[in-house]
């Protein structure tokens, strides 16, 4: 497992050296939207690495920029949204500057994608076999027969019972969980080294969610595929991710090993987030709530974006934005509390 998010890239404090070449390396990436009222900065200074076979969870509330980060990696940012800064490296190839045609080669071949709603990810008028074969033939150049054999193998691999019959069925003939398995098979079709899974279990029932996350984990382990798992569900992260990055208002505020972030969060926002989740074990009289809501893009506060809701905020928080810096051995947090206090003035 890799140690920290921002290993050795300039602008951020240097971190312990990485042990393996990362599959994906996102460096200081930002996304912006030009509008009539000026430029809106949606995300800024997002940096992380994912090692082969590693699952990096990315959590945050809606609008925090976690999906945008996933989309910018695949190169599917919806215009007018665009990258404002930074570099994205996939297996030592820079991919954010590729042309559209080159990008299509990378997408699907090297990066697979799984989205929230399996029904909209599949074409309703083609059988799942046809859709799988098309992807396999486009990326791997196999003939019809070999492609179909590979499609069958994939369907078996993702645990679809009776794959020989099911391969000729249409998406509407599958249940939600089975459809999501088909989408996973599609993402795996060309043997990618990275999968972007954007809320892959959110549309599914709880008992099926566990099946899908277990499947993702198993595939990741077997094939050494790296996964960027974007979700708002801390439970999914706790059971699936190796490391987790917490996003707030377009920035990574905390990153570290999943269990450390969940059980001993350092950033006040992560602490508030964890405390606001009702527990199955103890019934509290009232839940701990974080008052207020995340600032809108057009009214970002100065300094730390969380300071208006933060109970530890001091004068420094309103003026200066804290950088993401190491706290303890493996974790990093963007908070003045861990970087010389909230009262100082640098």
């Amino acid at each position, binding site marked *: 497992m890799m140690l920290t998010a921002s290993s050795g890239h300039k602008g951020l404090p240097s971190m312990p050296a990485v042990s393996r070449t990362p599959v994906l390396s996102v460096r200081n990436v930002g996304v912006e939207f030009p509008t009539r009222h000026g430029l809106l900065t949606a995300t800024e200074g997002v940096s992380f690495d994912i090692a082969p076979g590693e699952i990096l969870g990315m959590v945050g*509330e*809606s609008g925090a920029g976690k999906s945008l980060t996933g989309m910018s990696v695949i190169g599917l940012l919806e215009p007018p949204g665009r990258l404002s800064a930074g570099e994205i490296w996939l297996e030592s190839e820079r991919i954010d500057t590729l042309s559209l045609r080159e990008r299509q080669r990378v997408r699907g071949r090297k990066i697979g994608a799984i989205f929230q709603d399996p029904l909209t990810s599949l074409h309703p008028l083609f059988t799942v076999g046809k859709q799988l074969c098309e992807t396999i033939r486009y990326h791997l150049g196999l003939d019809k027969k070999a492609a179909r054999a590979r499609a069958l193998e994939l369907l078996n691999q993702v645990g679809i019972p009776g794959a020989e019959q099911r391969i000729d069925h249409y998406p509407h003939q599958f*249940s*939600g*969980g*089975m459809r999501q398995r088909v989408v996973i098979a599609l993402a795996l079709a060309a043997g990618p080294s990275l999968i972007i899974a954007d809320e892959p279990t959110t549309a599914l*029932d*709880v*008992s*099926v*969610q*566990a*099946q899908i*996350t*277990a499947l993702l984990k198993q595939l990741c382990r077997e094939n050494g595929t790296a996964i960027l798992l974007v979700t*708002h569900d*801390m*439970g*999914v992260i*706790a*059971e*699936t991710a190796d490391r987790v990055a917490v996003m707030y208002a377009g920035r990574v505020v905390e990153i570290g090993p999943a*269990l450390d972030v*969940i*059980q001993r969060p350092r950033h006040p926002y992560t602490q*508030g*987030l*964890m405390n*606001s*989740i*009702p*527990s*199955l*074990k103890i*019934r*509290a*009289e*009232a*839940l*701990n*709530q*974080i*008052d207020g*809501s995340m600032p809108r893009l057009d009214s970002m506060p100065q300094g730390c974006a969380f300071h208006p809701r933060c109970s530890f905020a001091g004068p420094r928080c309103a003026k200066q934005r804290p950088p993401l810096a190491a706290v303890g051995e493996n974790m990093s947090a963007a908070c003045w509390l861990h970087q010389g206090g909230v009262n100082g003035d640098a």
Partner: protein
Amino acid sequence: MATPENAEIMVVADKVTCLFDVSAPLLNRLIERQPRRTLRAVDGVSFEVKRGTTVSLVGESGCGKSTMARLLVGLHRPTSGEIRFPGEGGRPRVQMIFQDPYASLNPRWRVRDIIAEPIRTLNLRSGEDATRDRVDELLVLVGLSPRDGEKYPHEFSGGQRQRISIARALATEAEFLVCDEPTSALDVSVQAQILNLMRKLQQELGLTYVFISHNLSVVRHMSDRVAVMYLGRIVEEGEANAIFANPQHPYTKLLIDTIPNLEDPNRDRKPLGGEVPSPINPPPGCAFNPRCGLATDRCWKERPELMRQSDGQNVACFVADTRIPFEETVLVSEEV
């Protein structure tokens, strides 16, 4: 919150069944000889809700919990069985809180008018000044400011809109709220705000809630009693603490086991297979039998009824023992 032992009963669902006709159109039936098909959305569901308490209905999609919510507020009529309000003064004012706070507020109306509409329609205040004061009071009650009344719904976040929905429901002087997944569309930190607000309002105003959710930890936090539904039927019903501490039905156990535990996550989970079958064509016997590890031959032939167990939970499962028929126990509790 302890349930008052002799609290007045607010609502009784008595063997409520709701069928939907999902047949193909007439011509297809005639030409292709397709039979009529019915979907048993809710099938013989009985429970009661005491005044000032919260009963939650939990289950996965297609289990009939939302249909039950609509039956309780009168948006559907039961095909058989009935919903009774035994309290003095007949039917209480019932209101519903919906899942999607973006779809349930009129985007062209100011918030003040949205909240004032029930007050005007039901003539609850005489004159515009009194209505205005009442709207201000409601806005403050749900944690907004009277100034927010002049804004339109799009100017609010999801959590604030859900506060507006609650204010509108309370504007009718409702005593009984049916909440259908009220926090499912919200982020967790905002969800905590809304759940806290709902608990506070319940304590201050003595509201009665039927809370519909698929999220067990939210249900655990909100409920006095819990009914677990599977394919239109209640498979387990009882006091919330008892159900979470000691689930009896294999389906309840499965649901509770699949919830990730943040304190001690099970990272090597062996998930159970299977999904909810179609309610149009449910399996014979106990509907849970295809997914159940304990199923016997009897489970494929007979359907278990909801029976009271010695520890007070009601369970519909042949494998659970020491059972007394549920009907008898209901009669006993009514005599008390």
